Protein backbone atom coordinates (compact mmCIF):
# COMPACT_ATOMS: atom_id res chain seq x y z
CA UNK A 1 0.00 0.00 0.00
CA UNK A 2 1.06 3.56 -0.56
CA UNK A 3 3.04 2.87 -3.72
CA UNK A 4 1.80 3.99 -7.08
CA UNK A 5 1.64 1.22 -9.65
CA UNK A 6 1.13 1.63 -13.38
CA UNK A 7 -1.74 -0.67 -14.30
CA UNK A 8 -4.22 -1.30 -17.06
CA UNK A 9 -7.78 -0.15 -16.27
CA UNK A 10 -9.37 -3.58 -16.41
CA UNK A 11 -6.70 -4.94 -14.06
CA UNK A 12 -7.23 -2.06 -11.64
CA UNK A 13 -10.84 -3.24 -11.35
CA UNK A 14 -9.67 -6.71 -10.37
CA UNK A 15 -6.96 -5.72 -7.92
CA UNK A 16 -9.16 -3.09 -6.25
CA UNK A 17 -11.92 -5.68 -5.82
CA UNK A 18 -9.48 -8.08 -4.14
CA UNK A 19 -8.26 -5.30 -1.88
CA UNK A 20 -11.91 -4.52 -1.07
CA UNK A 21 -12.25 -8.07 0.28
CA UNK A 22 -13.80 -9.78 -2.73
CA UNK A 23 -12.67 -13.38 -3.26
CA UNK A 24 -15.27 -14.59 -5.75
CA UNK A 25 -15.47 -13.68 -9.45
CA UNK A 26 -17.79 -15.17 -12.03
CA UNK A 27 -17.67 -13.92 -15.61
CA UNK A 28 -17.76 -14.60 -19.33
CA UNK A 29 -15.35 -13.27 -21.99
CA UNK A 30 -16.26 -10.09 -23.86
CA UNK A 31 -14.14 -7.29 -25.30
CA UNK A 32 -13.09 -4.69 -24.09
CA UNK A 33 -12.83 -6.01 -20.52
CA UNK A 34 -11.11 -9.39 -20.97
CA UNK A 35 -8.12 -8.31 -18.91
CA UNK A 36 -10.33 -8.14 -15.80
CA UNK A 37 -11.36 -11.82 -15.68
CA UNK A 38 -7.89 -12.86 -16.87
CA UNK A 39 -6.38 -10.92 -14.00
CA UNK A 40 -8.79 -12.47 -11.52
CA UNK A 41 -8.21 -15.98 -12.87
CA UNK A 42 -4.50 -15.53 -12.13
CA UNK A 43 -4.72 -13.50 -8.95
CA UNK A 44 -7.65 -14.98 -7.00
CA UNK A 45 -6.06 -18.41 -6.41
CA UNK A 46 -3.04 -16.58 -4.92
CA UNK A 47 -5.26 -15.08 -2.22
CA UNK A 48 -7.46 -18.12 -1.59
CA UNK A 49 -10.26 -16.91 -3.84
CA UNK A 50 -12.28 -18.56 -6.58
CA UNK A 51 -12.68 -17.67 -10.25
CA UNK A 52 -15.19 -19.45 -12.45
CA UNK A 53 -15.64 -18.81 -16.15
CA UNK A 54 -19.38 -19.23 -16.53
CA UNK A 55 -21.08 -20.68 -19.62
CA UNK A 56 -22.78 -17.31 -20.26
CA UNK A 57 -23.41 -13.95 -18.68
CA UNK A 58 -26.83 -15.31 -17.73
CA UNK A 59 -25.18 -18.03 -15.66
CA UNK A 60 -22.51 -15.66 -14.32
CA UNK A 61 -24.96 -13.22 -12.73
CA UNK A 62 -26.84 -16.14 -11.18
CA UNK A 63 -23.60 -17.46 -9.72
CA UNK A 64 -23.25 -14.01 -8.13
CA UNK A 65 -26.79 -14.42 -6.83
CA UNK A 66 -25.85 -17.71 -5.17
CA UNK A 67 -22.54 -16.52 -3.71
CA UNK A 68 -24.17 -13.34 -2.42
CA UNK A 69 -27.02 -15.35 -0.90
CA UNK A 70 -24.31 -17.29 0.93
CA UNK A 71 -23.14 -13.99 2.43
CA UNK A 72 -19.93 -13.33 0.49
CA UNK A 73 -18.59 -10.34 -1.43
CA UNK A 74 -18.82 -11.26 -5.10
CA UNK A 75 -18.47 -9.52 -8.45
CA UNK A 76 -18.53 -9.83 -12.19
CA UNK A 77 -17.25 -7.71 -15.02
CA UNK A 78 -18.66 -7.51 -18.51
CA UNK A 79 -19.40 -5.15 -21.36
CA UNK A 80 -22.68 -3.84 -22.77
CA UNK A 81 -24.10 -6.88 -24.66
CA UNK A 82 -23.11 -9.10 -21.73
CA UNK A 83 -24.71 -6.72 -19.26
CA UNK A 84 -27.97 -6.91 -21.23
CA UNK A 85 -27.93 -10.67 -20.68
CA UNK A 86 -27.46 -10.12 -16.96
CA UNK A 87 -30.47 -7.87 -16.56
CA UNK A 88 -32.82 -10.64 -15.45
CA UNK A 89 -30.40 -11.73 -12.75
CA UNK A 90 -29.82 -8.15 -11.59
CA UNK A 91 -33.57 -7.71 -11.18
CA UNK A 92 -33.64 -10.89 -9.07
CA UNK A 93 -30.74 -9.60 -6.94
CA UNK A 94 -32.66 -6.35 -6.40
CA UNK A 95 -35.84 -8.25 -5.53
CA UNK A 96 -34.07 -10.65 -3.17
CA UNK A 97 -32.02 -7.79 -1.65
CA UNK A 98 -28.67 -9.30 -2.54
CA UNK A 99 -25.48 -7.21 -2.57
CA UNK A 100 -23.53 -7.78 -5.79
CA UNK A 101 -21.03 -5.66 -7.70
CA UNK A 102 -21.22 -5.53 -11.49
CA UNK A 103 -18.67 -3.69 -13.62
CA UNK A 104 -19.81 -2.58 -17.06
CA UNK A 105 -16.96 -1.60 -19.35
CA UNK A 106 -19.30 0.05 -21.84
CA UNK A 107 -18.89 -0.38 -25.60
CA UNK A 108 -20.91 0.99 -28.49
CA UNK A 109 -24.35 -0.51 -29.25
CA UNK A 110 -27.09 -1.30 -30.06
CA UNK A 111 -26.84 -5.02 -30.78
CA UNK A 112 -23.32 -6.28 -31.13
CA UNK A 113 -22.28 -2.67 -31.84
CA UNK A 114 -18.51 -2.20 -31.68
CA UNK A 115 -15.70 -2.43 -29.18
CA UNK A 116 -14.97 1.30 -28.88
CA UNK A 117 -15.71 3.24 -25.68
CA UNK A 118 -19.27 4.40 -25.19
CA UNK A 119 -21.68 5.68 -22.55
CA UNK A 120 -24.82 4.38 -24.19
CA UNK A 121 -25.83 2.17 -21.24
CA UNK A 122 -26.66 5.13 -18.97
CA UNK A 123 -30.41 4.52 -19.16
CA UNK A 124 -29.99 0.79 -18.62
CA UNK A 125 -27.84 1.34 -15.53
CA UNK A 126 -29.66 4.22 -13.88
CA UNK A 127 -33.29 3.57 -14.77
CA UNK A 128 -33.45 -0.11 -13.94
CA UNK A 129 -32.62 -2.10 -17.04
CA UNK A 130 -34.35 -5.25 -15.92
CA UNK A 131 -38.02 -5.67 -15.00
CA UNK A 132 -39.69 -4.27 -11.92
CA UNK A 133 -39.35 -1.13 -9.81
CA UNK A 134 -35.76 -1.27 -8.70
CA UNK A 135 -32.66 0.85 -8.60
CA UNK A 136 -28.99 0.08 -8.82
CA UNK A 137 -26.38 2.38 -7.31
CA UNK A 138 -24.31 3.46 -10.31
CA UNK A 139 -20.75 4.72 -9.88
CA UNK A 140 -18.92 6.38 -12.79
CA UNK A 141 -15.14 6.75 -12.39
CA UNK A 142 -13.29 9.30 -14.50
CA UNK A 143 -9.74 7.98 -14.14
CA UNK A 144 -8.04 4.84 -12.91
CA UNK A 145 -7.35 6.14 -9.41
CA UNK A 146 -11.04 6.77 -8.99
CA UNK A 147 -11.82 3.41 -10.58
CA UNK A 148 -9.72 1.82 -7.83
CA UNK A 149 -11.24 3.93 -5.05
CA UNK A 150 -14.83 3.38 -6.16
CA UNK A 151 -14.51 -0.41 -6.10
CA UNK A 152 -14.42 -0.21 -2.31
CA UNK A 153 -17.42 2.15 -2.28
CA UNK A 154 -19.21 -0.34 -4.50
CA UNK A 155 -18.77 -3.31 -2.15
CA UNK A 156 -19.46 -1.22 0.97
CA UNK A 157 -22.65 0.31 -0.45
CA UNK A 158 -23.85 -3.05 -1.76
CA UNK A 159 -23.47 -4.59 1.69
CA UNK A 160 -24.86 -1.62 3.58
CA UNK A 161 -28.04 -1.37 1.52
CA UNK A 162 -28.28 -4.98 0.26
CA UNK A 163 -28.48 -3.70 -3.30
CA UNK A 164 -26.79 -4.38 -6.65
CA UNK A 165 -24.12 -1.77 -7.41
CA UNK A 166 -22.83 -1.09 -10.90
CA UNK A 167 -19.47 0.46 -11.65
CA UNK A 168 -20.03 2.10 -15.01
CA UNK A 169 -16.68 2.21 -16.74
CA UNK A 170 -16.04 2.32 -20.47
CA UNK A 171 -13.74 0.90 -23.12
CA UNK A 172 -11.30 3.76 -22.69
CA UNK A 173 -10.97 3.45 -18.90
CA UNK A 174 -10.70 -0.30 -19.36
CA UNK A 175 -7.79 -0.08 -21.80
CA UNK A 176 -5.65 2.83 -20.61
CA UNK A 177 -2.80 2.48 -18.15
CA UNK A 178 -2.36 4.98 -15.32
CA UNK A 179 -0.63 4.91 -11.99
CA UNK A 180 -2.87 4.01 -9.08
CA UNK A 181 -2.45 3.74 -5.36
CA UNK A 182 -4.58 1.22 -3.48
CA UNK A 183 -5.64 3.00 -0.33
CA UNK A 184 -7.24 -0.02 1.31
CA UNK A 185 -6.50 -3.70 1.83
CA UNK A 186 -9.38 -5.49 3.52
CA UNK A 187 -9.05 -8.99 4.95
CA UNK A 188 -12.35 -10.70 4.04
CA UNK A 189 -12.38 -12.48 7.40
CA UNK A 190 -12.55 -9.08 9.10
CA UNK A 191 -15.82 -8.22 7.35
CA UNK A 192 -18.94 -8.56 9.52
CA UNK A 193 -20.94 -11.77 9.09
CA UNK A 194 -24.14 -11.18 7.16
CA UNK A 195 -26.92 -12.09 9.56
CA UNK A 196 -29.43 -12.74 6.81
CA UNK A 197 -27.32 -15.12 4.67
CA UNK A 198 -28.57 -18.56 3.65
CA UNK A 199 -25.43 -20.36 4.79
CA UNK A 200 -26.88 -23.33 6.65
CA UNK A 201 -29.08 -23.05 9.75
CA UNK A 202 -26.61 -23.99 12.49
CA UNK A 203 -28.98 -23.57 15.45
CA UNK A 204 -31.03 -20.68 14.16
CA UNK A 205 -34.29 -20.21 12.30
CA UNK A 206 -34.53 -20.84 8.57
CA UNK A 207 -33.33 -18.08 6.23
CA UNK A 208 -35.08 -17.55 2.92
CA UNK A 209 -33.62 -15.61 -0.02
CA UNK A 210 -36.55 -14.90 -2.27
CA UNK A 211 -38.17 -12.40 -4.59
CA UNK A 212 -41.55 -14.14 -4.95
CA UNK A 213 -44.62 -12.96 -3.07
CA UNK A 214 -47.95 -14.04 -4.53
CA UNK A 215 -49.82 -11.99 -1.93
CA UNK A 216 -50.55 -8.66 -3.63
CA UNK A 217 -50.33 -6.67 -0.42
CA UNK A 218 -47.21 -8.53 0.63
CA UNK A 219 -45.47 -7.65 -2.62
CA UNK A 220 -46.58 -4.04 -2.34
CA UNK A 221 -45.12 -3.85 1.18
CA UNK A 222 -41.86 -5.37 -0.12
CA UNK A 223 -41.72 -2.74 -2.86
CA UNK A 224 -42.44 0.05 -0.38
CA UNK A 225 -39.57 -1.17 1.77
CA UNK A 226 -37.22 -1.11 -1.25
CA UNK A 227 -38.42 2.36 -2.25
CA UNK A 228 -37.83 3.71 1.27
CA UNK A 229 -34.29 2.37 1.05
CA UNK A 230 -33.79 4.06 -2.33
CA UNK A 231 -34.92 7.41 -0.86
CA UNK A 232 -32.36 6.98 1.92
CA UNK A 233 -29.64 6.28 -0.65
CA UNK A 234 -30.67 9.38 -2.59
CA UNK A 235 -30.27 11.44 0.59
CA UNK A 236 -27.00 10.00 1.81
CA UNK A 237 -24.89 8.55 -0.95
CA UNK A 238 -24.56 11.19 -3.67
CA UNK A 239 -21.04 11.83 -4.98
CA UNK A 240 -20.24 14.70 -7.33
CA UNK A 241 -17.33 16.92 -8.33
CA UNK A 242 -17.80 20.61 -9.14
CA UNK A 243 -14.97 22.26 -11.04
CA UNK A 244 -14.75 26.02 -11.66
CA UNK A 245 -18.52 26.41 -11.35
CA UNK A 246 -18.66 29.51 -9.08
CA UNK A 247 -18.45 32.12 -11.82
CA UNK A 248 -19.24 29.87 -14.78
CA UNK A 249 -21.40 31.38 -17.47
CA UNK A 250 -21.74 27.98 -19.08
CA UNK A 251 -21.90 24.87 -16.90
CA UNK A 252 -20.86 21.62 -18.56
CA UNK A 253 -22.34 18.40 -17.19
CA UNK A 254 -20.40 15.24 -18.01
CA UNK A 255 -19.28 12.02 -16.33
CA UNK A 256 -16.66 9.31 -16.72
CA UNK A 257 -14.28 9.52 -19.67
CA UNK A 258 -16.26 12.40 -21.18
CA UNK A 259 -15.80 14.41 -17.97
CA UNK A 260 -12.00 14.16 -18.07
CA UNK A 261 -12.00 15.37 -21.67
CA UNK A 262 -14.44 18.14 -20.69
CA UNK A 263 -12.16 19.10 -17.80
CA UNK A 264 -9.27 19.63 -20.22
CA UNK A 265 -11.64 21.67 -22.39
CA UNK A 266 -12.58 23.81 -19.37
CA UNK A 267 -8.87 24.42 -18.65
CA UNK A 268 -8.24 25.38 -22.28
CA UNK A 269 -11.22 27.74 -22.30
CA UNK A 270 -10.31 29.32 -18.96
CA UNK A 271 -6.83 30.07 -20.30
CA UNK A 272 -8.50 32.05 -23.06
CA UNK A 273 -10.75 33.85 -20.56
CA UNK A 274 -13.99 31.92 -21.10
CA UNK A 275 -15.90 31.39 -17.87
CA UNK A 276 -16.83 27.73 -18.04
CA UNK A 277 -17.32 25.15 -15.30
CA UNK A 278 -17.97 21.45 -14.96
CA UNK A 279 -20.39 19.46 -12.81
CA UNK A 280 -19.29 15.82 -12.81
CA UNK A 281 -21.71 13.29 -11.31
CA UNK A 282 -19.75 10.42 -9.74
CA UNK A 283 -22.93 8.64 -8.67
CA UNK A 284 -25.20 8.56 -11.72
CA UNK A 285 -27.87 7.07 -9.50
CA UNK A 286 -28.44 8.63 -7.06
CA UNK A 287 -28.17 11.61 -9.42
CA UNK A 288 -26.53 14.67 -7.80
CA UNK A 289 -29.66 16.82 -7.89
CA UNK A 290 -28.58 19.27 -5.17
CA UNK A 291 -25.12 19.81 -6.62
CA UNK A 292 -26.63 20.65 -9.97
CA UNK A 293 -29.29 22.86 -8.33
CA UNK A 294 -26.49 25.10 -7.03
CA UNK A 295 -25.58 25.92 -10.62
CA UNK A 296 -29.25 26.25 -11.56
CA UNK A 297 -29.63 28.89 -8.81
CA UNK A 298 -26.27 30.52 -9.56
CA UNK A 299 -27.05 33.89 -11.26
CA UNK A 300 -23.69 33.75 -13.08
CA UNK A 301 -24.69 30.55 -14.87
CA UNK A 302 -26.71 31.24 -17.99
CA UNK A 303 -26.93 27.79 -19.57
CA UNK A 304 -25.92 24.15 -19.40
CA UNK A 305 -24.08 21.98 -21.89
CA UNK A 306 -24.27 18.21 -21.54
CA UNK A 307 -21.54 16.11 -23.15
CA UNK A 308 -21.94 12.33 -23.44
CA UNK A 309 -20.73 9.42 -25.56
CA UNK A 310 -24.30 8.61 -26.60
CA UNK A 311 -27.30 10.20 -28.27
CA UNK A 312 -28.40 12.02 -25.12
CA UNK A 313 -29.30 10.03 -22.01
CA UNK A 314 -28.09 11.81 -18.86
CA UNK A 315 -29.33 15.03 -20.47
CA UNK A 316 -32.85 13.91 -19.47
CA UNK A 317 -31.86 13.85 -15.78
CA UNK A 318 -30.30 17.30 -16.18
CA UNK A 319 -33.56 18.52 -17.74
CA UNK A 320 -35.51 17.24 -14.74
CA UNK A 321 -33.32 19.25 -12.38
CA UNK A 322 -33.06 22.44 -14.47
CA UNK A 323 -36.80 22.13 -15.06
CA UNK A 324 -37.03 24.67 -17.87
CA UNK A 325 -35.38 27.53 -15.94
CA UNK A 326 -32.28 27.75 -18.14
CA UNK A 327 -31.36 26.52 -21.62
CA UNK A 328 -29.71 23.10 -21.93
CA UNK A 329 -27.67 22.02 -24.94
CA UNK A 330 -26.41 18.58 -25.75
CA UNK A 331 -23.48 17.27 -27.76
CA UNK A 332 -22.68 13.60 -28.06
CA UNK A 333 -20.54 11.22 -30.08
CA UNK A 334 -21.55 7.63 -30.72
CA UNK A 335 -20.37 4.26 -31.90
CA UNK A 336 -17.12 4.29 -30.00
CA UNK A 337 -15.84 7.64 -31.29
CA UNK A 338 -14.23 9.68 -28.55
CA UNK A 339 -13.96 13.44 -29.13
CA UNK A 340 -10.87 15.50 -28.39
CA UNK A 341 -11.17 18.43 -25.96
CA UNK A 342 -10.96 20.82 -28.93
CA UNK A 343 -14.30 19.52 -30.15
CA UNK A 344 -15.89 20.55 -26.84
CA UNK A 345 -14.03 23.88 -26.88
CA UNK A 346 -15.51 24.70 -30.30
CA UNK A 347 -19.03 23.77 -29.16
CA UNK A 348 -18.75 26.12 -26.17
CA UNK A 349 -17.27 28.95 -28.24
CA UNK A 350 -20.15 28.66 -30.71
CA UNK A 351 -22.65 29.73 -28.04
CA UNK A 352 -20.58 31.70 -25.53
Amino acid at each position, binding site marked *: MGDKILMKGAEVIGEAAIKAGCRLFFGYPITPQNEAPAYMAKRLPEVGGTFVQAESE*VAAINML*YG*ASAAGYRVMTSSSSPGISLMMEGISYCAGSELPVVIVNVMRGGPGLGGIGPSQSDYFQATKGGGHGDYKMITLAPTNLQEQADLMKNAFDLADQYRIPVMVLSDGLLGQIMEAVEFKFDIDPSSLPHKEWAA*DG*RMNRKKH*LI*NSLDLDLDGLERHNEKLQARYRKIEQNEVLCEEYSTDDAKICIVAYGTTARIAKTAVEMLREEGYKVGLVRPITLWPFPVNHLLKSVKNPATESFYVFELNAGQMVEDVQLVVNGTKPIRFYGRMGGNVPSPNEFVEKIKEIY
Partner: protein
Amino acid sequence: MNDMKQIFKVTPLLSKTKRSYCPGCTHGVIHRLVCEVIDELDQFEKTIIVVPVGCSTLAIHYFEMDTVQAAHGRAPAVATGMKRAMPSKTIFTYQGDGDLASIGTAEIVHAATRGERITTIFVNNGIYGMTGGQMAPTTLEGWKTETSPYGRNLKKEGNPIRMCEMLSQLNGPAFIARTSVHTPANIVKTKKAIRTAFKAQINDLGFSLVEILSTCPTNWGMNPVDSLKRIENETMNYYPLGEFKKVEGL
Protein backbone atom coordinates in the same frame (compact mmCIF):
# COMPACT_ATOMS: atom_id res chain seq x y z
CA MET B 1 -45.96 -51.02 23.61
CA ASN B 2 -42.35 -50.52 24.66
CA ASP B 3 -40.91 -53.14 22.35
CA MET B 4 -42.70 -51.70 19.33
CA LYS B 5 -40.38 -50.34 16.67
CA GLN B 6 -41.07 -46.89 15.24
CA ILE B 7 -41.44 -47.31 11.49
CA PHE B 8 -42.94 -43.95 10.57
CA LYS B 9 -42.43 -40.45 11.84
CA VAL B 10 -42.86 -36.92 10.65
CA THR B 11 -39.60 -35.62 9.26
CA PRO B 12 -38.56 -32.43 11.05
CA LEU B 13 -37.16 -31.04 7.80
CA LEU B 14 -40.58 -30.37 6.29
CA SER B 15 -42.54 -27.37 7.52
CA LYS B 16 -46.10 -27.66 8.78
CA THR B 17 -47.24 -25.06 6.25
CA LYS B 18 -50.33 -26.13 4.33
CA ARG B 19 -49.30 -27.40 0.88
CA SER B 20 -50.72 -25.79 -2.24
CA TYR B 21 -49.96 -28.71 -4.56
CA CYS B 22 -52.91 -30.27 -6.41
CA PRO B 23 -54.43 -33.55 -5.18
CA GLY B 24 -52.46 -36.51 -6.52
CA CYS B 25 -49.34 -34.49 -7.25
CA THR B 26 -46.17 -36.39 -6.39
CA HIS B 27 -44.13 -33.36 -5.30
CA GLY B 28 -45.19 -34.10 -1.71
CA VAL B 29 -43.77 -37.62 -1.83
CA ILE B 30 -40.53 -36.43 -3.40
CA HIS B 31 -40.14 -33.55 -0.90
CA ARG B 32 -40.48 -36.07 1.90
CA LEU B 33 -37.94 -38.49 0.41
CA VAL B 34 -35.38 -35.71 -0.02
CA CYS B 35 -35.89 -34.52 3.55
CA GLU B 36 -35.62 -38.04 4.98
CA VAL B 37 -32.33 -38.59 3.17
CA ILE B 38 -30.85 -35.27 4.30
CA ASP B 39 -31.93 -36.04 7.86
CA GLU B 40 -30.51 -39.56 7.78
CA LEU B 41 -27.20 -38.29 6.38
CA ASP B 42 -27.16 -35.73 9.20
CA GLN B 43 -26.91 -32.81 6.76
CA PHE B 44 -29.93 -30.74 7.84
CA GLU B 45 -28.07 -27.85 9.46
CA LYS B 46 -25.61 -27.48 6.61
CA THR B 47 -27.90 -27.96 3.63
CA ILE B 48 -29.29 -25.18 1.45
CA ILE B 49 -31.96 -25.87 -1.16
CA VAL B 50 -32.20 -23.85 -4.36
CA VAL B 51 -35.78 -23.84 -5.63
CA PRO B 52 -36.70 -23.18 -9.26
CA VAL B 53 -39.52 -21.42 -11.05
CA GLY B 54 -42.48 -23.69 -11.55
CA CYS B 55 -44.88 -25.48 -9.21
CA SER B 56 -42.07 -26.22 -6.80
CA THR B 57 -41.32 -22.49 -6.34
CA LEU B 58 -43.97 -22.94 -3.66
CA ALA B 59 -41.41 -25.09 -1.84
CA ILE B 60 -39.81 -21.89 -0.51
CA HIS B 61 -42.20 -22.35 2.43
CA TYR B 62 -42.14 -26.16 2.69
CA PHE B 63 -38.54 -26.97 3.51
CA GLU B 64 -37.13 -26.15 6.93
CA MET B 65 -33.54 -25.75 5.74
CA ASP B 66 -32.17 -22.45 4.42
CA THR B 67 -33.79 -21.77 1.06
CA VAL B 68 -32.78 -19.74 -1.98
CA GLN B 69 -35.22 -19.10 -4.81
CA ALA B 70 -33.61 -18.88 -8.25
CA ALA B 71 -34.67 -17.41 -11.58
CA HIS B 72 -36.24 -19.76 -14.14
CA GLY B 73 -33.70 -22.38 -15.19
CA ARG B 74 -30.82 -20.79 -13.31
CA ALA B 75 -30.82 -22.94 -10.17
CA PRO B 76 -27.62 -24.83 -11.15
CA ALA B 77 -25.79 -21.49 -11.63
CA VAL B 78 -27.07 -20.19 -8.29
CA ALA B 79 -26.06 -23.46 -6.63
CA THR B 80 -22.63 -23.17 -8.27
CA GLY B 81 -22.17 -19.72 -6.74
CA MET B 82 -23.23 -21.02 -3.32
CA LYS B 83 -21.07 -24.12 -3.41
CA ARG B 84 -17.99 -22.19 -4.60
CA ALA B 85 -18.53 -19.72 -1.75
CA MET B 86 -19.19 -22.48 0.82
CA PRO B 87 -17.50 -25.71 -0.30
CA SER B 88 -18.24 -27.46 3.00
CA LYS B 89 -22.02 -26.99 2.76
CA THR B 90 -24.45 -29.32 0.99
CA ILE B 91 -26.25 -27.59 -1.85
CA PHE B 92 -29.02 -29.04 -3.98
CA THR B 93 -31.39 -27.78 -6.63
CA TYR B 94 -34.96 -28.98 -7.01
CA GLN B 95 -36.14 -28.41 -10.58
CA GLY B 96 -38.98 -29.31 -12.89
CA ASP B 97 -38.73 -30.32 -16.54
CA GLY B 98 -39.57 -26.89 -17.99
CA ASP B 99 -37.01 -25.29 -15.71
CA LEU B 100 -34.22 -27.82 -16.21
CA ALA B 101 -34.79 -29.27 -19.69
CA SER B 102 -35.94 -26.15 -21.54
CA ILE B 103 -34.96 -22.71 -20.28
CA GLY B 104 -32.16 -24.02 -18.07
CA THR B 105 -30.40 -26.51 -20.37
CA ALA B 106 -27.21 -24.45 -20.58
CA GLU B 107 -26.96 -24.12 -16.82
CA ILE B 108 -27.58 -27.81 -16.04
CA VAL B 109 -25.23 -29.06 -18.78
CA HIS B 110 -22.38 -26.80 -17.68
CA ALA B 111 -22.84 -27.39 -13.95
CA ALA B 112 -22.73 -31.12 -14.77
CA THR B 113 -19.69 -30.97 -17.03
CA ARG B 114 -17.79 -28.79 -14.55
CA GLY B 115 -18.53 -31.51 -12.04
CA GLU B 116 -19.95 -29.00 -9.57
CA ARG B 117 -20.32 -30.65 -6.19
CA ILE B 118 -24.05 -30.10 -6.14
CA THR B 119 -27.06 -32.42 -6.33
CA THR B 120 -30.06 -31.93 -8.57
CA ILE B 121 -33.49 -33.40 -7.96
CA PHE B 122 -35.17 -33.28 -11.36
CA VAL B 123 -38.92 -33.84 -11.30
CA ASN B 124 -40.20 -34.76 -14.76
CA ASN B 125 -43.93 -34.85 -15.36
CA GLY B 126 -43.80 -33.95 -19.04
CA ILE B 127 -45.77 -30.70 -18.77
CA TYR B 128 -45.70 -27.11 -17.50
CA GLY B 129 -47.87 -27.26 -14.39
CA MET B 130 -47.68 -23.81 -12.81
CA THR B 131 -48.51 -21.90 -16.00
CA GLY B 132 -51.47 -24.12 -16.80
CA GLY B 133 -50.51 -27.18 -18.83
CA GLN B 134 -48.36 -26.10 -21.75
CA MET B 135 -46.16 -28.47 -23.75
CA ALA B 136 -42.82 -29.16 -22.11
CA PRO B 137 -39.57 -30.28 -23.78
CA THR B 138 -40.32 -33.65 -22.16
CA THR B 139 -43.95 -33.99 -23.34
CA LEU B 140 -44.40 -37.31 -25.14
CA GLU B 141 -45.55 -37.80 -28.71
CA GLY B 142 -49.30 -37.46 -29.07
CA TRP B 143 -49.87 -35.87 -25.66
CA LYS B 144 -52.41 -33.07 -25.79
CA THR B 145 -51.48 -29.89 -23.95
CA GLU B 146 -52.58 -26.25 -24.06
CA THR B 147 -49.89 -25.53 -26.66
CA SER B 148 -50.05 -28.86 -28.48
CA PRO B 149 -53.85 -29.11 -28.63
CA TYR B 150 -53.74 -31.64 -31.48
CA GLY B 151 -51.27 -33.82 -29.68
CA ARG B 152 -47.49 -33.42 -29.84
CA ASN B 153 -46.47 -33.92 -33.45
CA LEU B 154 -42.78 -34.76 -33.70
CA LYS B 155 -42.52 -33.18 -37.14
CA LYS B 156 -43.86 -29.87 -35.86
CA GLU B 157 -42.98 -29.77 -32.17
CA GLY B 158 -39.82 -31.85 -32.27
CA ASN B 159 -38.76 -34.71 -30.03
CA PRO B 160 -38.95 -35.03 -26.25
CA ILE B 161 -35.55 -34.64 -24.61
CA ARG B 162 -33.90 -37.33 -22.48
CA MET B 163 -31.74 -35.46 -19.97
CA CYS B 164 -30.20 -38.40 -18.08
CA GLU B 165 -28.96 -40.00 -21.28
CA MET B 166 -27.51 -36.66 -22.41
CA LEU B 167 -25.85 -35.73 -19.13
CA SER B 168 -24.40 -39.19 -18.59
CA GLN B 169 -22.17 -38.62 -21.65
CA LEU B 170 -20.26 -35.97 -19.69
CA ASN B 171 -17.25 -36.59 -17.51
CA GLY B 172 -18.33 -34.26 -14.69
CA PRO B 173 -21.21 -36.21 -13.18
CA ALA B 174 -20.58 -38.87 -10.53
CA PHE B 175 -24.13 -40.16 -10.41
CA ILE B 176 -27.02 -39.91 -12.86
CA ALA B 177 -30.17 -41.97 -12.37
CA ARG B 178 -33.83 -42.02 -13.39
CA THR B 179 -36.45 -43.34 -11.01
CA SER B 180 -40.19 -43.08 -10.55
CA VAL B 181 -42.65 -42.67 -7.68
CA HIS B 182 -45.68 -44.39 -9.19
CA THR B 183 -45.56 -47.44 -6.87
CA PRO B 184 -44.34 -48.01 -3.30
CA ALA B 185 -41.48 -50.17 -4.58
CA ASN B 186 -40.35 -47.40 -6.91
CA ILE B 187 -40.63 -44.84 -4.11
CA VAL B 188 -38.19 -46.95 -2.09
CA LYS B 189 -35.83 -47.13 -5.07
CA THR B 190 -36.11 -43.36 -5.56
CA LYS B 191 -35.09 -42.73 -1.97
CA LYS B 192 -32.08 -44.97 -2.45
CA ALA B 193 -31.07 -43.04 -5.56
CA ILE B 194 -31.47 -39.70 -3.80
CA ARG B 195 -29.28 -41.00 -1.02
CA THR B 196 -26.58 -42.04 -3.49
CA ALA B 197 -26.79 -38.65 -5.17
CA PHE B 198 -26.20 -36.76 -1.92
CA LYS B 199 -23.39 -39.13 -1.03
CA ALA B 200 -21.70 -38.27 -4.33
CA GLN B 201 -21.68 -34.65 -3.22
CA ILE B 202 -20.69 -35.25 0.38
CA ASN B 203 -17.84 -37.55 -0.70
CA ASP B 204 -16.63 -34.91 -3.20
CA LEU B 205 -17.02 -37.23 -6.20
CA GLY B 206 -18.76 -34.92 -8.65
CA PHE B 207 -22.11 -33.67 -9.87
CA SER B 208 -25.17 -35.82 -9.16
CA LEU B 209 -28.71 -35.86 -10.50
CA VAL B 210 -31.80 -37.96 -9.96
CA GLU B 211 -34.58 -37.61 -12.49
CA ILE B 212 -37.88 -38.65 -10.98
CA LEU B 213 -40.82 -39.46 -13.24
CA SER B 214 -43.84 -37.71 -11.85
CA THR B 215 -47.48 -36.90 -12.60
CA CYS B 216 -49.68 -33.89 -13.13
CA PRO B 217 -53.27 -35.12 -12.72
CA THR B 218 -54.68 -31.59 -13.08
CA ASN B 219 -53.06 -30.73 -16.39
CA TRP B 220 -53.05 -34.27 -17.70
CA GLY B 221 -56.83 -34.27 -17.13
CA MET B 222 -56.73 -37.60 -15.29
CA ASN B 223 -57.46 -38.83 -11.81
CA PRO B 224 -54.45 -39.53 -9.57
CA VAL B 225 -54.62 -43.31 -9.94
CA ASP B 226 -54.80 -43.21 -13.74
CA SER B 227 -51.96 -40.70 -13.71
CA LEU B 228 -49.73 -43.14 -11.85
CA LYS B 229 -50.69 -45.86 -14.35
CA ARG B 230 -49.76 -43.54 -17.19
CA ILE B 231 -46.18 -43.39 -15.90
CA GLU B 232 -46.03 -47.20 -16.09
CA ASN B 233 -47.76 -47.46 -19.47
CA GLU B 234 -46.42 -44.45 -21.36
CA THR B 235 -43.74 -42.38 -19.68
CA MET B 236 -41.41 -45.23 -18.77
CA ASN B 237 -41.41 -46.51 -22.35
CA TYR B 238 -39.68 -43.35 -23.51
CA TYR B 239 -37.82 -42.60 -20.30
CA PRO B 240 -36.39 -45.92 -19.08
CA LEU B 241 -35.54 -46.18 -15.39
CA GLY B 242 -32.03 -46.98 -14.23
CA GLU B 243 -28.61 -45.71 -13.31
CA PHE B 244 -26.95 -44.02 -16.27
CA LYS B 245 -23.74 -43.15 -14.53
CA LYS B 246 -22.23 -44.19 -11.24
CA VAL B 247 -18.57 -43.61 -10.51
CA GLU B 248 -16.48 -45.96 -8.41
CA GLY B 249 -16.76 -45.42 -4.70
CA LEU B 250 -20.54 -44.93 -4.67
